[in-house]
């Protein structure tokens, strides 16, 4: 074999490895970040790396209201060097052989963590691989699986979610470009389908429901077969990405005066570039910036924490009013009401073609409606029978009461519960209308549930 054929064979062998370069995932940054001057970029990048780390080396920032660990607990019973019992009401199923434990008492703090060899879920007792150098005292706090939920979440996110939602949760993964609607960009901290009030963020349960049930009518599939603990880990990771994105968004907005465009303007107006930069660096030196970061992160953490309380949920005081022709007719009346404005976007017949869909919004280049992410969106065609945010009456109630977050849909805070239920009943009836509502046969179209179920015309494949 001569040299040339050896080379050809060798390069053929390398072919399958094409495209397998350095594949360590990296967090990307928003557009606003790249518009900043390099010194400001460097600072924002540093802040994010300090408090959130990188995708592979993530940091569990205690300030964030997230469940980073399998368990945050205390030592119970009579601990020995090898066996320690913990006080846990219910033992997380992920704890097992190999799980790390860190004791947080003063004398244990600097010790290397211990690894569990055997875990007795009944008695919540861990047997360690090696004998503990210092036996923790009863009542000492301990973290079982420190940061492990975040780690699990990251692995599952990478497996199931990342290719659409992106490494940083920016909704721009490799498959995102093929999808319409676009995958959610978490970095505004907004999620469309929630059961929380208008001013609140999503609850963990809302995110878990979307993961388990999927969103019909979009590309978000159901991940029903995930274990509950897996779904919970993904929820924590998504919230974590969301908080990271929000902090980045807030910081880049606050530092807008250091965007290249503005700095160039100021330099043109006679200021010196060095002076602007040095003022910024001095601000960092004095700790003023870091106070701002802590403060902003605090707001984000508080907002998320507040959204997890039962008070954040949309409240239903009146039981659902059973559907009836009268209720549907009343719902239709409300739907067309000029003050409630449903038909402005959803159209008088509910086809999602109301006048707003072809009006110019204040600062838009093209007519139509846009969501908070800047994507053009269409109001839902209510005739399809597809309910993206869930088809329970409660889901529809929440949509009407608290709107679809991040979209131009208006909330209806002041509407009495009874009227919301009438609207819900009307919305439910729309897919079963045989005539276009308003075409002159309302009475007939309004009572579809009373009609005979559609009989198969012939004994087709259905039988």
């Amino acid at each position, binding site marked *: 074999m001569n040299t040339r054929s050896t080379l050809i064979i060798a390069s053929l062998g390398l072919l399958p490895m094409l495209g397998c370069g350095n594949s360590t995932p990296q967090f990307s940054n928003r557009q606003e970040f790249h518009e900043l001057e390099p010194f400001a970029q460097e600072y924002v990048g540093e802040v994010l790396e300090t408090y959130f780390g990188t995708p592979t080396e993530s940091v569990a920032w205690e300030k964030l209201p997230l469940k980073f660990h399998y368990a945050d607990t205390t030592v119970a019973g009579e601990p020995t060097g090898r066996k320690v019992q913990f006080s846990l009401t219910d033992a997380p199923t992920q704890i097992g052989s190999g799980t790390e434990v860190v004791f947080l008492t003063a004398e244990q703090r600097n010790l290397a963590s211990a690894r569990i060899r055997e875990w007795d879920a009944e008695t919540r007792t861990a047997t360690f691989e090696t004998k503990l150098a210092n036996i923790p005292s009863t009542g000492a706090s301990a973290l079982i699986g420190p940061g492990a939920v975040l780690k699990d979440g990251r692995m599952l996110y990478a497996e*199931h979610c990342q290719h659409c939602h992106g490494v940083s949760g920016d909704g721009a993964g490799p*498959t995102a470009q*093929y999808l319409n609607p676009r995958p959610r960009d978490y970095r505004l901290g907004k999620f469309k389908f929630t*059961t929380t009030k208008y001013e609140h963020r999503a609850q963990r349960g809302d995110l878990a429901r979307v993961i388990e*049930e*999927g969103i*019909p009518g979009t*590309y978000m*599939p*159901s991940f*029903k*077969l995930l274990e509950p603990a897996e779904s919970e880990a993904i929820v924590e990771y998504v919230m974590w990405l969301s908080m990271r994105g929000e902090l980045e968004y807030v910081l880049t907005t606050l530092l807008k005066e250091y965007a290249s465009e503005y700095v160039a303007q100021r330099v043109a107006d006679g200021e010196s570039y060095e002076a602007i930069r040095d003022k910024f660096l001095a601000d960092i030196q004095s700790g003023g910036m870091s106070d701002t970061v802590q403060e902003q992160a605090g707001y984000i953490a508080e907002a998320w924490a507040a959204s997890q309380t039962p008070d954040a949920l*949309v*409240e*239903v005081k*009146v*039981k*659902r009013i*059973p*559907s009836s022709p009268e209720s549907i007719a009343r719902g239709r009346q409300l739907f067309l009401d000029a003050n409630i404005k449903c038909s402005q976007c959803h159209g008088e017949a509910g086809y999602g073609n109301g006048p707003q869909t072809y009006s110019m919004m204040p600062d838009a280049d093209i007519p139509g409606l846009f969501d908070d992410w800047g994507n053009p969106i269409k109001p839902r065609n209510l005739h399809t*029978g597809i309910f993206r945010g869930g*088809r*329970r*009456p*409660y889901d529809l*109630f*929440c949509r009407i009461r608290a709107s679809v977050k991040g979209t131009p849909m208006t909330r209806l805070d002041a509407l009495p519960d009874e009227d919301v239920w009438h609207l819900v*009943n009307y919305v*439910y*009836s729309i*897919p*079963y209308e045989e005539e276009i509502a308003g075409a002159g046969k309302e009475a007939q179209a309004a009572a*579809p*549930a009373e009609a005979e*179920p*559609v*009989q*198969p015309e012939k*004994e*087709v*494949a*259905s*039988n």
Partner: protein
Amino acid sequence: MKWFWCLFFALAPILAMAVSIASPGYGWWFPSEAASPLGQRIDDLFYMILMITTVTFIGTQIGLVYVLFKGARRTDADVNEKAWFSHGSHELEVIWSVVPAFILLFIALYQLDVWADYRVKNLFPREEMSKLLEEKLHQKRTEHDSLALAEVTARQFEWRIRYPGFDADGHLLPLMPEPQPTDLYAVNDLHMPVKVPVMINLKSQDVQHSFFLPELRVKQDAVPGLVIPVWFEANHQRSYALLCAELCGWGHYKMKAQLVAESDEAFLEYLHELHEQQFFDGVAAEEASDDEDE
């Protein structure tokens, strides 16, 4: 050297046989035993064909190896043997055309009834299915109503399931071709009564998918625009894998669902549970379970 190659090519079929015999022990075989009566019959067909091909394989390999060694022997210096010119032998041509033709014809005819039982609508176990619906599940039905217990719609990339719901008195309704306000919805989680033939209507919302229950040996393409009835019977009370067996897009691998085979009572209970979840109105759960039709 020539004997090395003779042995080499003689060993290849022996190795192939050894691997085939060892495979089931290593789990390189069917996904478990067939978990349905029809699946058992499909497996029997497979084993019959496997036996025919095994006998054919061994026979042809023995012939090949024999010819190999005989030919190699002829090239030895001390041998002065002539080759047999068999080209154009009418007898041989007839034998190796007619024998395989009979075998193929036999297989074609022998498998007909399994295929017919699985695919021909008139041969579906209708009586058993309607008995289940009427007597066990107390469905209010007429003879025109569908025997299907659910409509399974494949879409990129999940299985959306529509069950018939209950009427105001809590009786199970028949499945209608078009969605009804009372219908119950689920995704990626198909529940069915166990040890009895059941039927689903298979649809696709976008591209071609394939409804695949490997343990039950059920595989049926879902074709856009068609409603395809599929019947199956699960032998055991447990969950089975439900997969897509037609490359349907980049997320094909995500179409992983489960079939839960359970008792008639548990199935009805599951539907009642779905009903309660689906009509939850945000007030107390126990009050919200009352039947509301819209």
